């Protein structure tokens, strides 16, 4: 229990502390320190849950089981490595004059605030609080997207704010409908939005209302996942903000939104006889996957390109969770992990690449490998990993997903394989000149911290070669929870 409170209180303390001292030169270190402590607490929490099983706080407001604790640990880990990257990066941005001290203060405070909102969304047991925390995560990041105050970034932030706000309002309507259905079954009104209680009573909930509710919830949280056609805000918001923000938005926030969808699907599946929720998720997921892989080809901005790659992968995961069954669910959980790790590593490298070239335009980034081999190789290996090259973990999870699709929906493997191919081509046609092209005159290496990249990519490599036993069992328990059958 203490571990759970620590996980939530540490980022809260961090937010308040950095709200006061976020402008000092030490603030980067404080940010790293708080994130490290949070990561420690999350590991402690994970150990507790793995040993003793699901944890429900005495007031029933917080609930942690094997499924969300793994996302908690992942969120805290990527939060830590991105904080390590962000310290020198933001100092460099300050030297370039893109941010002043006041904005640095805002940045640091909101970094921790954002982590807090995501962790709260993950561990809360109350569907209403889940909504509140998701909205809070938007509110925390919206001013960070416009941190540079260029016309583009202000536009991106406004789009992000309005589209996500409108989208997530639909999720609140869905939540009201769930409450409406639950209130007739569950005696104590205050318990009627608690996920653990709802899950236990899922069979008695009115299917008609829950179907309607799920449609609204899918539109709402789907907007945050970045599902096509609700994805318009995502490439803008992810590309215009400071790079550490892109890394955590792409690597983490999308996961949390997908987590919310999966939780709700578990609820709806318990109530409905049919697999309606699954079909909806499969449809939207596959559409996002195909559309995003096509859009990869048209990008001119490197961060936008990788944002579209995030949409593609989120679409794939949504599809896999919709597919259901133990194999697909296991694959999707693994894919969530490797995608987060790889994508945040890529954004870190991209941040350095953009600083080297002084631009985010793909046409202007050239010859990275000769100017600064570490960045060039990082980008090359990272992109190979995200495109699903063996022996990286993404290959493993995509292979599992393909196998699952062949088992249950053989003809859907065709669009999947085409999508993989198209996405692969889209990434590499842009990557090749950036890494190997002619070096422009006067291009110099920058002070780069490649530690997070190396750690992330090594982890992804390990997961691709052999998943450690304890991790496999961890994923398997989560699969048992979600798909109601285990794989191993």
């Amino acid at each position, binding site marked *: 229990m203490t571990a759970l409170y620590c996980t939530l209180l540490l980022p809260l303390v961090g937010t308040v502390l950095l709200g006061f001292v976020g402008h000092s030169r030490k603030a980067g270190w404080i940010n790293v320190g708080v994130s490290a402590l949070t990561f420690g607490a999350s590991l402690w929490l994970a150990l507790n849950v793995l040993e003793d099983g699901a944890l429900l706080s005495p007031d029933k407001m917080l609930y942690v089981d094997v499924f969300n604790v793994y996302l908690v640990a992942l969120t805290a880990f990527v939060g830590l490595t991105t904080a390590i990257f962000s310290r020198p990066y933001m100092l460099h941005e300050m030297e370039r004059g893109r941010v002043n001290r006041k904005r640095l203060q805002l940045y640091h405070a909101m970094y921790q605030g954002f982590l807090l909102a995501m962790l709260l969304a993950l561990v809360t047991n109350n569907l209403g609080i889940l909504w509140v925390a998701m*909205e809070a995560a938007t*509110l925390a990041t919206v001013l960070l997207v416009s941190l540079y105050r260029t016309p583009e970034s202000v536009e991106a932030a*406004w789009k992000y704010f309005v589209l996500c706000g*409108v989208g997530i*309002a639909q999720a609140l309507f869905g939540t009201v409908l769930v409450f409406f259905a639950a209130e007739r079954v569950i005696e104590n*009104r205050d318990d009627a939005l608690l996920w653990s209680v709802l899950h236990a009573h899922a069979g008695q909930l009115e299917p008609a209302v829950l179907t*309607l509710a799920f449609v609204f919830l899918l539109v709402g949280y789907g907007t945050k996942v970045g599902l096509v056609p609700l994805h318009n805000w995502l490439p803008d918001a992810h590309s215009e903000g400071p790079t550490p923000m892109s890394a955590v938005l792409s690597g983490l926030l999308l996961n949390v939104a997908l987590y919310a969808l999966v939780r709700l699907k578990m609820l709806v599946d318990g109530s409905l006889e049919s697999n309606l929720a699954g079909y909806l998720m499969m449809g939207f997921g596959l559409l996002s996957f195909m559309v995003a892989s096509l859009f990869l080809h048209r990008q001119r*901005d490197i961060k936008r390109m990788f944002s579209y790659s995030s949409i593609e992968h989120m679409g794939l995961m949504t599809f896999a969770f919709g597919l259901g069954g133990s194999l697909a669910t296991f694959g999707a959980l693994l894919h969530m992990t490797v995608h987060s790790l790889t994508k945040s590593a890529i954004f870190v490298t991209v941040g350095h690449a953009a600083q080297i070239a002084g631009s985010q335009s793909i046409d202007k980034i050239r010859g990275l490998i000769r100017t600064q081999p570490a960045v060039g190789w990082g980008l090359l290996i990272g992109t190979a990993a995200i495109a699903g090259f063996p022996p990286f973990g993404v290959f493993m999870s995509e292979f599992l997903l393909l196998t699952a699709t062949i088992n249950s929906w053989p003809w859907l493997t065709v669009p999947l394989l085409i999508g993989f191919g198209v996405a692969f081509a889209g990434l590499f046609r842009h990557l090749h000149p950036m890494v190997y092209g002619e070096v422009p005159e006067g291009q110099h290496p920058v002070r780069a911290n490649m530690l997070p990249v190396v750690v992330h990519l090594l982890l992804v490599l390990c997961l691709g070669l052999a998943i450690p036993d304890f991790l496999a069992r961890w994923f398997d328990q989560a699969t048992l929870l979600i798909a109601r059958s285990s794989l191993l």
Partner: protein
Amino acid sequence: MNLQLLSLYEQAILVLAAMVLFTSFALLAQTRIANLIRLFAWQGILLSATTVMVAMVSKQHHLYISGLLTFVLKALMIPWMLNRLAIRLDIHRKVETTANQTVVLLGAAALVVFCYYVALPIAQLSAGITRNVIAISLAVVLLALLLIITRRKAISQVVGFMSMENGLFFAAVVSTYGMPMVVELGVAFDVLVAAILFGVFFFQIRASIDSLDVDRLNRLTEAQEVEE
């Protein structure tokens, strides 16, 4: 539905629901910024009146608190903030040009019919006014969405955004006697923060494009030329 069979409370709720929906239509038709904000405040007042009435009839005491919260937030604070911003940004007396007002209003009427259709499964579940209420609150949400889509001024979009929250709140209060208190407080907090952030954004937008017409926020498109 036979109106005379309904209790006095249910009839009153229906009247209030109709009035809330009417304010939504009025918001769509209104093009003067100052009046738009005033109408939004009226919607907030109607909403808090509904909440207090539901609280009295259902004896759910926590609803008094949320009624008060709604009144302070939606009827006083946010309209006051928007009004002050509008004066400071000197768009208070501006009239917004909107294309095809008639088509928009006809579309809005069609949306209301659609909402009743969507709420059909709920009608089979519960007798009485719940279906009406769910359909109307959904209509308020969708009309607010229409407002956001058809308007160009950032401030009108914010009014639409907040009016959308009103619709959601109306659904929660009337069909389920309000959400649990923690959730309501959380939502109110989010709305307040959002309102403040919108204010910050008006200045950022104006500083960057020298206007509050979001039409001119069009630099980010798919085939963009990246400028430095």
